[in-house]
């Protein structure tokens, strides 16, 4: 390859990394709400994302025909609509299952107790993934629109040598993701539920004394967390084909981002997710395509081993 091709290749991967990274960032923000507020590892986060993908797929299928510019707008409307839907699923799952082993009552249990929720969410993840196989079938699907296969062409730059193709669907999805993150951050900073969540995260016992219903706050956090991640899934659905087992790969992506960003910081989680997107895409410069995910796993291991407090945020507790 000529130098110009190298540069073109790099720029192409860089944009791809930023665009996927923005969506990963959104997914990480969702996870970080749960991880940061409840100190609960939600193993099933990837499966909630998978639900988001399928919900978006079906919503898109049912609304696209009825809308003006349906093909162009419907994927994003569908992705946003997924948020409230999965939020409700999250509330139910939390109320019925997760709250039984976590929260204010769970934290009083002895050391062994806190493994209960880890294993519980593993169970939920298995039920959702395999239940998904029964309901949705195993054949990979995706939301295909004209946008997802149409690039904007940038260039030629540097004389005639460099041409950049920027996928329109991905670009809009990334912008929507950033918008959702900003809106959620504003909600957390300024609204009453947001303040309750932050108080419950900081010191659940004190929050109870201040009259905050911490179990309710946890439930809402769980709903928000899975809902936001599901929007991320919905946005990915228009460019990436998926099947019911897709969740597990993204669980590592999300935890890598959250840990990288530092526990309990929304900004950190978003930047962490963005970085993971970049790592994933740019690893293609050195590694074969099949090993892109391995690069993320290795990256994740290095982060937790070397810098568990994260790169962008305050210290994460190891225990």
């Amino acid at each position, binding site marked *: 390859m000529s130098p110009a091709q190298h540069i073109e290749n790099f720029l192409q991967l860089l944009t791809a990394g930023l665009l996927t990274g923005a969506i990963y960032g959104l997914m990480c923000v969702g996870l970080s709400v749960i991880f940061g507020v409840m100190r609960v590892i939600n193993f099933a986060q990837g499966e909630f994302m998978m639900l988001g993908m399928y919900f978006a797929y079906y919503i898109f299928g049912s609304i696209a025909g009825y809308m003006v510019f349906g093909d162009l707008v419907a994927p994003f409307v569908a992705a946003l609509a997924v948020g409230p839907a999965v939020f409700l699923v999250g509330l139910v799952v939390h109320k019925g299952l997760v709250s039984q*082993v976590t929260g204010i009552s769970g934290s009083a249990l002895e050391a062994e107790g806190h493994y*209960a929720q880890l294993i519980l969410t593993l169970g939920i993840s298995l039920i959702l993934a395999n239940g998904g196989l029964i309901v949705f079938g195993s054949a990979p699907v995706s939301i295909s629109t004209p946008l997802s296969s149409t690039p904007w062409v940038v260039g030629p730059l540097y004389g005639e040598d460099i041409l950049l193709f920027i996928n329109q669907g991905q670009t809009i999805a990334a912008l929507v993701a950033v918008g959702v993150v900003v809106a959620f951050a504003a909600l957390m900073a300024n609204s009453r539920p947001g303040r309750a969540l932050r108080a419950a995260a900081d010191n659940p016992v004190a929050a109870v004394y201040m009259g905050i219903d911490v179990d309710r706050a946890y439930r809402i956090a769980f709903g928000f967390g899975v809902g936001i991640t599901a929007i991320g899934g919905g946005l990915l659905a228009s460019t990436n084909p998926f099947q019911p087992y897709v969740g597990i*790969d993204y*669980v590592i992506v999300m935890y890598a981002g959250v840990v990288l960003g530092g526990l309990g910081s929304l900004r950190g989680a978003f930047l962490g997710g963005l970085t993971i997107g970049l790592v994933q895409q740019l690893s293609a410069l050195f590694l074969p395509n099949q090993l892109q995910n391995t690069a993320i796993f290795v990256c994740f291991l290095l982060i937790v*081993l070397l810098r568990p407090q994260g790169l962008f945020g305050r210290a994460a507790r*190891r225990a």
Partner: protein
Amino acid sequence: MSRTGRHWPWIAAFALAYGALALFVDNQYYQLIMTVVLVWAVMGLAWNLLSGYSGLISFGHAAFFGLGAYFVALIQLTWGISPWYGIPLAALLGGVAGLVVGVPTFRLRGHYFALAMLAYPLALLYVFEWLGYQEVAVPMVRDAPAAYMQFDDGRVYILIGLGFVVASMLITRLVERSRFGMCLLAIKQDETAAEAAGIDTLAWKLRAIVLSGAMAATIGGFYAVVQLVVTPLSVFGVLVSAQALIVAMFGGVGTVWGPVIGAVTLVPLSAWLDAEFAERLPGIQGVIYGVAIVAVVMLAPEGLFWKVRDIVRRRRAASARTESATAATPAAATRADGFRVADVRAGRTVLTVNGLSKSFGGLRAVDAVSLEVRQGEIVGIIGPNGAGKTTLFNLLNGFIAPDAGEVLLDGQSILGKAPNRICRGGVGRTFQIVKPFRRMSIADNVVIGAYVNAGSDDDARALATAAIAAVGLGDAAESIAGSVSNEQLRLMELARALASRPSILLLDEIFAGLAGAEVERLMQVIRGLAALGITIVIIEHTMQAMVQLVDRFIVLDHGAVLAAGSPGAVTRDPAVIEAYLGRKWLEDA
């Protein structure tokens, strides 16, 4: 746990019954199921050996299983090496993999450990796909099948699998009965306390993961032989790790029987569902496993084995309730002579601290502290809340590293040594907030402390018994630590520290929460220990009780030494009065 119960007749009975049943099964499909049950039983036992006993949840046992499976399949495919050799070699490989995974990953605890473990098999899965091993078939050997572990009769596989199960159960049992298992249980309940009691927690965890990895790789190798085809998803997939965890959790963690019960129940169930409904409901097996875990976590978090055992015990206890509740008796230091410190030279300096400093952020918790403690002294370190007393202890027993200064024990620096090494060197400690191993008996708690300087497990038991007698806890020895009084817990911690045969004991607010008569008894015990030549350093923020007990006070305030001297002198020191009571009292004093 039930250390005295005999398990091997039961294990033999199980093996005989299962083997006998196998002989009557002609149907090849049922034979395969019976073999696969055994594979998952061993996988569950492997997971249990690490996670069940030590409490460090692994989501990544598929890494070992998959390595074993691919190794056995590939060496036969490439070099024609028989699984009879391949499987033992796979065990070695699994052990090495355990070490490679354990060394970095054990720096993490709790959630982070579980997540990091998840990443290993997933990373390997993609690596094996990339290497082009999407589907590795074990070649059929026509001329000498038995030499390559290939049999027409599926029952032979059941018998071989049974051999692996029995071996794994016996290994688990050996671990459980020994120091190994006790140390893992201690780590599970309180890793900090275990480390302070002289247990090299990292070394035991590494041994556990090496053994566990070897077991998982062994059975992975056997799985390759049974299935004849190895794919990345079937051996590195999440379901593999999950299944190991599930059979163990379902049957019962921390016991030999749990994983076996889980595998015997769940594997046939899911196989039947799979056969019956897989056409219409392709993911039913995973759903069933998911429901099984959720149900177990909600209803019997420790698994079936413990649930049933608890019910049986409660029945028995209810029918034969006797008055056995006895309080701790005061010190009867009859057998305490074993703890006499060998090198008794009055006035010898045991502990020297020079310019020790530690800051947390901007706060100087310990600020250039220097002090000396001589053999056989009882020294009280006092100071208001937040004066840096506990931080000083944490520096002395190695929980945290100082920013500057040195700590000498018998003239040798202990800086940079792990807490368990420092304990081995003769520093015992108790905690401000008691750290018992709650699910163990008092006796077992103290045994944990005894390991560090005991040759054999029997020696440790003897030492523990003596230490318990020395603090006057003899009557409560068999009580479970989670159920005894605060006084008994304080005495238990003292006995646990004593059992390590310390030359110096660091007691962190040992009188906290005790009433007058209890304080009196405990002081009696402490004086008895000092009489044996054991040097004692006590932290306390109130002076009252201490005035009668100590030879010398060191007063800390804002991390620095404010005053030092005899109780009489220190209590009259204006600076001390000011620190404690404020300037106003100074004029009155």
